[in-house]
């Protein structure tokens, strides 16, 4: 008896939530087809009964009557696709290394890196007056070399293993993005002054988003790659196949479903990202979220037009969510998310 009661409650809850999650989307879809008059007369829900659907809003948007619309779409697609490819490629390489090789990093050498990097930067920039990008680049290279060398020495102090390295990657997600976004903005404007345009440019955005997507791809790909059996690789190693060929021709194809899932998640995050785009773009490379946020102020609230823009920006993600939902149902993701 009690069992049944809980089942009913669960079913009712699921049903209510189902309606709640779909209703707003339905409303946007409907609004996009409304003529302006139908919108301003108050909320209406059923096409053909409450109002006559029209494609006017879509036509306006794509013919550019409400400002450049194709620009943001193109830049969104180009930037998010290239950043996703880069992030997933680099991320799965890093994840592969984390799964197959054992790293031992001494905390002391990590600290040395921080000391040389920060101290050296202050020295070069503030005392010798070196330009920020040069000082930063020089200092990072020197600090990296020094800490790699020092890592070989038997230093006292704790030794960090692979799990700590992974946590280091994931921890990048913990701190608020305004911290890095703002620092990045300052650095980009510094580099701009040297003549290399990074703010509001393809290169700058892709770089920022690759860094933004890396934590996810390392984290997820690590779980997926851990399930790839070792024996095949060992066989290939015996046959004297190079590591790169093993990675690209054996490991990656075997982890293909995971690779697809990871790419989609990373793509979704980059596609939706707002803060970096807000800070780093101003005109040429504005992405869709920025266009959306700008919609409301430019000409008052023209809800039919806003609905069209919103629909365009969420349509690819609906596809992504559907595909991922199917993968989840087949039990593919349940193992990896744990």
């Amino acid at each position, binding site marked *: 008896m009690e069992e049944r009661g809980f089942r009913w409650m669960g079913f009712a809850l699921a049903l209510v939530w189902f309606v709640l999650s779909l209703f707003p989307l339905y409303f946007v879809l409907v609004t996009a087809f409304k003529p302006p008059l139908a919108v301003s007369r108050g909320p209406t829900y059923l096409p053909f009964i409450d109002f006559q659907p029209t494609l006017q809003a879509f036509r306006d948007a794509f013919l550019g009557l409400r400002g450049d619309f194709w620009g943001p779409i193109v830049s969104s697609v180009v930037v998010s696709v290239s950043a996703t490819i880069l992030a997933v490629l680099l991320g799965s390489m890093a994840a592969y290394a984390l799964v197959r090789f054992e790293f031992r990093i001494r905390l002391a050498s990590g600290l040395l890196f921080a000391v040389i990097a920060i101290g050296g930067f202050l020295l070069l920039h503030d005392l010798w007056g070196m330009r920020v990008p040069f000082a930063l680049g020089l200092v990072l290279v020197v600090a990296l070399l020094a800490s790699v060398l020092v890592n070989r020495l038997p230093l006292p102090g704790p030794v960090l293993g692979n799990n700590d390295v992974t946590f280091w990657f994931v921890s990048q997600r*913990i701190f608020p993005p305004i911290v890095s976004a703002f620092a990045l903005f300052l650095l980009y404007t510094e580099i701009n002054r040297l003549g290399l345009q990074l703010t509001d440019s393809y290169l700058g955005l892709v770089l920022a988003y690759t860094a933004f997507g890396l934590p996810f791809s390392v984290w997820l790909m690590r779980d997926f790659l851990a399930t790839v059996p070792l024996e095949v690789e060992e066989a290939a190693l015996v046959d004297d196949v190079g590591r790169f060929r093993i990675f690209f021709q054996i490991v990656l194809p075997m982890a293909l479903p995971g690779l697809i899932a990871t790419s989609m998640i990373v793509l979704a995050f980059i*596609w939706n990202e707002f803060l970096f785009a807000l*800070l780093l773009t101003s005109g040429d490379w504005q992405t869709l979220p920025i266009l959306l946020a700008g919609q409301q102020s430019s000409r008052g609230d023209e809800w039919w037009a806003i*609905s069209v823009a919103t629909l365009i920006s969420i349509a690819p993600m609906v596809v992504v*969510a559907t595909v991922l939902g199917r993968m989840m149902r087949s039990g593919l993701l349940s193992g990896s998310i744990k």
Partner: protein
Amino acid sequence: MWTTSVITVLSVVFQYVLGFALALALHHNVPGSSLYRVTFLLPMFLAPVGVALIARMIFHPYLGPMNDLMGAIGIGNLPFLTEPNLAMAALISVEVWQWTPFVTLLMLAGLQSLPQEVFEAARVDNIGAWRRFWDITFPMLLPISVAVVFIRLVEGFKVIDTVFVMTGGGPGTSTETLTLYAYNEGFKKFNIGMTSALSFTFLVVVILFGTLYLALAQRLTRRYA
């Protein structure tokens, strides 16, 4: 600071309770659950900016369905986005709407990884569903719950896009979150130093808070385990 904490904590509480309940419902295969799985995922993948715009439309004083509903139950028009408390409530509900799926997804994965034997044993011993949940399911899922809540809290602290679009921090500054405040200082008032200082303080606060939370959570899980 206060605003951010209120929004974050309240919305995470709702997300967790709702998300867990939904995960339980899905786990026990209520009718139509395969359809729900896809739809429940959906809000999570939509651009927060888009979601916020939709929410603005839904909460619109006289064009939105929300006030249509309010009128139908006889409450009348409520100024959802221009009255401080209501604006907070609207923001929180949007956050809950968008991120409950995340909790559901992870809790479902957690539920599916639990060993079945324990539940069968409990069933044989004729232990009620309510007690089964509190004495078995909940403690066993505590580690993953801790992780999920942590992720949501941290993410919640960073919220800017929803607020930026829905209320712009208003009315007044009643819904201005930390990130939005830092952004406004730097890019509207060109107070770069202030923004740097703010974001750095922010970082320290998040790190402190995270360490505290994780330490507390560890004690809690240990007591149960």
